């Protein structure tokens, strides 16, 4: 005899909510992908398969420039913020360091402050210093908001570090430099890669901070897309979005190890 029990109820509810959440997360994206192949100006009705928006995409100079800008900023800010994050993570590894609490406070503060405030404050800083906004100001802003995330991911990798390995290397006569580059760095490398990947993702995804710190003529992809949506000429955006989603999918599926260390850093 089947009996209603709270356990079954819980399980059933969990499954229902899960299914609902998945539909909620994926239906809009799926629609977007499907309609990127739709040969119609109006969104609703299906008028047949086409690739013409993808062809338009290839010939669009503004999109190409925005894409190159995005990659340039993401690449450089990833490099610098991962390096800075690694350095500070190593520096603050020693828990007895004087002033460590204050340093940690400064390092973690950007994580708990809304993005828009960082955007506004940097915009005002650049105005105050009379700096022309453009590529350099965007790069500075991106390094600033990525560095704390990079540091946190590397710190969590250092947390479980087995120091007996360092001692073993030293006992065997390795110099501190050799020990660091041959033993320690390779061991924390997954954390460093995860930090770099997170910085890269944060950088290419950012709209609001870039919006406040970029000048005229320096658009990243999110800035370009937002402008296009606002102006209402959205036909190529579907195709562009589908490409971006496809790239994301590839990245997520093929980076198992990195994904794991990203999840464990939460």
């Amino acid at each position, binding site marked *: 005899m089947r009996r209603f029990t709270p356990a079954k109820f*819980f399980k059933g509810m*969990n499954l229902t909510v899960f299914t609902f959440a998945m539909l909620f997360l994926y239906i809009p994206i799926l629609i977007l992908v499907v309609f990127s192949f739709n040969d119609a100006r109006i969104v609703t009705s299906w008028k047949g398969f086409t690739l013409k928006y993808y062809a338009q995409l290839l010939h669009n100079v503004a999109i190409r420039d925005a894409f190159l800008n995005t990659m340039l900023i993401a690449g450089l800010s990833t490099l610098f913020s991962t390096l800075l994050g690694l350095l500070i993570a190593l520096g603050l590894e020693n828990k007895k360091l004087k002033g460590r609490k204050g340093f940690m406070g400064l390092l973690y503060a950007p994580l708990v402050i809304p993005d828009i405030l960082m955007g506004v404050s940097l915009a005002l800083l650049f105005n105050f210093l009379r700096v022309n906004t453009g590529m350099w100001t965007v790069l500075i802003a991106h390094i*600033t908001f990525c560095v704390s995330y990079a540091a946190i991911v590397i710190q969590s990798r250092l947390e479980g570090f087995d120091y007996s390995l360092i001692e073993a290397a030293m006992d065997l006569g390795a110099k501190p430099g050799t020990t660091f580059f041959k033993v320690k760095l390779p061991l924390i490398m997954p954390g460093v890669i995860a930090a770099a990947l997170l910085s890269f993702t944060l950088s290419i995804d950012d709209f609001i901070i870039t919006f406040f710190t970029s000048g005229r003529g320096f658009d990243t992809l999110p800035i370009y897309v937002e402008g296009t949506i606002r102006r209402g000429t959205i036909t190529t955006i579907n195709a562009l979005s589908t490409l971006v989603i496809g790239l994301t999918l590839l990245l997520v599926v093929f980076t198992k190890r990195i994904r794991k260390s990203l999840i464990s850093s939460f």
Partner: protein
Amino acid sequence: MKSNSKSSRLDYLLAAPTLIWLTVFFLVPYFIVLIYGFLTPDIFDVKFEFNLDAYRQLFDGTYFRPFVLSVKLAITTTLLCILIAYPVAYLIARASDKIKNTLLILIIIPFWTNLIIRIFSWRIFLSYNGVLNDILMRIGLISQPLEIMRTDLAVIMVMVYVYLPYMILPLYSVLEKLDFTLLHAAMDLGANEVKSFFKITLPLSLEGIFAGVLLVFIPALGTYLIPQLVGDQRSLYVGQVITYKIKNIPRNWPMASALSFGLLILVAIFLLLGYILLKKSKVRGVA
């Protein structure tokens, strides 16, 4: 071995570049925000003349309302995220290892997809002649398209959609480490599922909920893009007002500064509240 002065000097050297960077580009700018709030607006810039208007206007109805709306939105979003994320995280945490990985990927993909693109996809879904209305009319549930786009409801839906993974992941990482033998022990001792959930699972997952709230509530307070792209333009949130004051001409940077500073204080208050609450719940957990 690490406590001698030579190695601590090296530690300071390693930490210094990042600390200097954050001081110059994170800390100092907030002082500039504070100061700009006391200046006089100009059409394109600011005049360096002392003026109290901006901070005074902060408590006017026109500028106070966006704050109220933003707090309301952040609370609603956070609560809905907890309600949906908890069962989802619980299900993933208790799934077998193989399924667990697939489910996690499913949660992470939207998290890694560009924010603007995700918001944009909701515009297609919800718009007047969009897919949702089309389906509902074809089924015969409605005869007139629903006006969902550009309403407060649309803002809440998209907010929950965007922030849901930020609540699921920390909850999952707490629930995954949860010792489920405790639950079995409780049930062996006669507690039913409901009781053991409220007495064991929920208190032990408080830390995850707190982390999730931090990741959802604070960004939600300052949101600009979502209400801007799908919201009703008659109800403006703080993020929108700040952005308009900075970007639209005539510019009013002192007002934007005062609003930003108000938002910063608000965030600080909520963080402090959360910190006290977490500490209290921990103390009770030990006792």
